[in-house]
């Protein structure tokens, strides 16, 4: 079991989902994959499909339509799974707090493990966030 547990920490596959963000955080998530940040160093692969994901990187505020999508996607991720809210919007709704179609942060719909603040978040902060999530996973008794 120890081997598997260790491997979990070494191989977090991410799925990135954009609720109704401004793209600011999304391009930074993508930027993490590029040569300068290259998160594949940590075994992170962008899978683009909930069934293969371990960590969900959610950007943007939840609006009334994406709430359903987010819920659906979350349900399709096999456990153990982590959810990271990337950006201020995803954490609380941020600057869109008074928009009529916005429900608020990701935690309105699915449980969130790590919040990364910033608008937009920097790639370094995303790496920090994933590391934090992995620490949580490592300490969890799964």
């Amino acid at each position: 079991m120890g081997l598997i547990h260790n491997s979990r920490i070494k191989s977090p596959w991410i799925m990135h989902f954009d609720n109704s963000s401004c793209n600011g955080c999304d391009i930074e998530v993508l930027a993490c994959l590029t040569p300068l940040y290259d998160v594949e160093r940590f075994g992170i692969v962008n899978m683009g499909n909930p069934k293969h994901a371990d960590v969900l990187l959610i950007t943007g505020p939840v609006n009334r339509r994406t709430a359903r999508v987010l819920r659906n996607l979350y349900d399709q991720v096999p456990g153990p799974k982590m959810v990271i809210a990337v950006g201020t919007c995803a954490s609380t709704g941020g600057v869109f707090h008074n928009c009529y179609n916005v429900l608020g942060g990701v935690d309105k719909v699915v449980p969130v493990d790590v919040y990364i603040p910033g608008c937009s978040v920097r790639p370094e902060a995303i790496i920090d966030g994933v590391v934090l999530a992995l620490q949580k996973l490592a300490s969890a008794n799964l």
Partner: protein
Amino acid sequence: MTDGMMAIAILLPLLAGLVIFLVRDYYARNVVVVVTALTLIANSILFVVKGPFTYTPTGFNWGLVIEVLDYAILIFYLYLGFTLRNWLVLIFAVTQLIPLAYFEFVMKAHVEVAPAFVVDNLAIIMCLVISIVGSLICIYALRYMYDHEQHAHVEKSRQSRFLLWLVLFLGAMNGLVFANNLVWLYFFWEVTTMCSFMLISHDKTELAIKNAARALWMNSTGGTAFIIAIIYLYVTQGGASALSMQNIIGGTLQGSILLLPVALLCYTGCTKAAQMPFQSWLLGAMVAPTPVSALLHSSTMVKAGVYLVLRLAPAYAGTYVSTAVAIVGAFTFFGTSALAISQSTGKRVLAYSTIANLGLIIACAGINTPLSIAAAILLIIFHAISKGMLFLCAGTIEHLIWSRDIEDMEGLAAKAPLTTLITALGILSMFLPPFGMLLGKWIALEAAYRIPLAAVLFVLASTMTIVFWTKWLGRLLQVLPKLGWPFEKLSLSYSVPLWTLLVGIFVVGIGVAPIYQNFVASAAHNVISGTQIFASGWDNMSLSGTSVKGLLGYFPVWALYAVFAIAVLLPLIFVGLKPTQLRPVYMCGEQSGAMDADEYMAEADTKTKVILGGYYFQDSLGEKTLNPVVNTIAILLLVIMIGCGVILK
């Protein structure tokens, strides 16, 4: 004893057919059919036990009977041509009638040949296939026709008439494979053609009659070639002795003038085996009730065509005709496999695949090595069982969902798991290691190197075969994630033939080594060496150039079955999914509702059903695009084949 056996094999079906026709009671009729079927099966096994022999009927002027009936059939064609206003039928009836009349009345030909029947190993194997598979199909037809008429709300039942032709067909086929006298062979040939016409047109719809007429005239061109070949042989080779099959293949005739009639007879075989460009009659025949298709396309009719070509193999061995036959067959294998990909109707796929396999068998005959002949015989056996079963499955499915469309079979595994399972195994048996068909293909490929062009066509065609089978199989097994399917109940008349054939597939598959060793090898030897085989019976013959070990040693049948069992059966035992472990499929996050929903949210938040159609490549492989090309090539190839007979002596 031989008297009785021959009578049962050839005349009993006729008799039983007449009885069935007269007995109007459903149950009584069933009893007659079942008894006939069982008798035929038992009789065919008796043939195996007895081994090869020759036979000439005595005590009655059978020749005269056959002569009279010949004319009756041809005049019936004439009548059909007139009433259907189908000029092609008429023309080809005339082209048979006139030479035949000329041959008998003007030339006053003597057509007595001794022996009239030669029951050799190949014929016995054919008889086994015909009797067993054919009889099972007759049993299946009992219930099928009942359901068929129920569904169509037919006023007056025509089942007995249907069964008459069906059963009669078996007798004609038996006669055909046993006949040594070419004129008699021709007679049986025409009987099968006529039966097929009656069966295809059974539903009396416009389409059915049109397609039956097409089958009739196409086969009549073959009949014409047959007659011409007979006359040619008679004239050039000097008399009735040339009309003995044994003499033709035994090398006792003058080889150089023999080639043209042989090529003509090969052409005749090709028409009956629906080789390109004659594939359209077989496809048209699919309008008939499914037992017809099953019978015509697995064990009888088309097998008569390949039988003739195979039988003649030694007569054209080593000539360019042989190469041409191989290429004609290989090309049909290739062309129809490609066409099958574009088909969405289950029966049409089966039809194309039938033609493809017949092409393969004919190609094997054309390759004309001991190995390839053995492959051809193996393929005849395996194909008859698998394809017969698949047609029956198609019929069963048709009566479950009342559709022949492959697309409509989606999720059948949940509705009718048993039928699906049998169908799936049947499909797998067509192309999966370790089943027989693949074994046949393997041997064929091994043999094909003699004619590289054929080998290349084989390679391409067998790849495409995989494609259309997989597509169909995938469609059958595509299910929503529901748990627990109850098995459906099938009527006995459906399930007995299905199960028997399924068991048959496994038995001949697993037992291929002994079967090969004990039967096929000697039959192949018998084909190749013509007459000199009789004394040896089922002796364990070693074919020149190959031994059983050499042939089968490297086809690790047992190992492959082990792999198959591990792969397919083991997980079935161990997989136990709990409902909590099921998730809906991925639909980009918009799947709606429970795990077995196949809907998603689309515009304006409305639920929309996912529709998954198959790929049919209509643009590149459709009949419209491909047919003109392949048919032209096929006609050319046939011309070349006959041309080889004329020019290259």
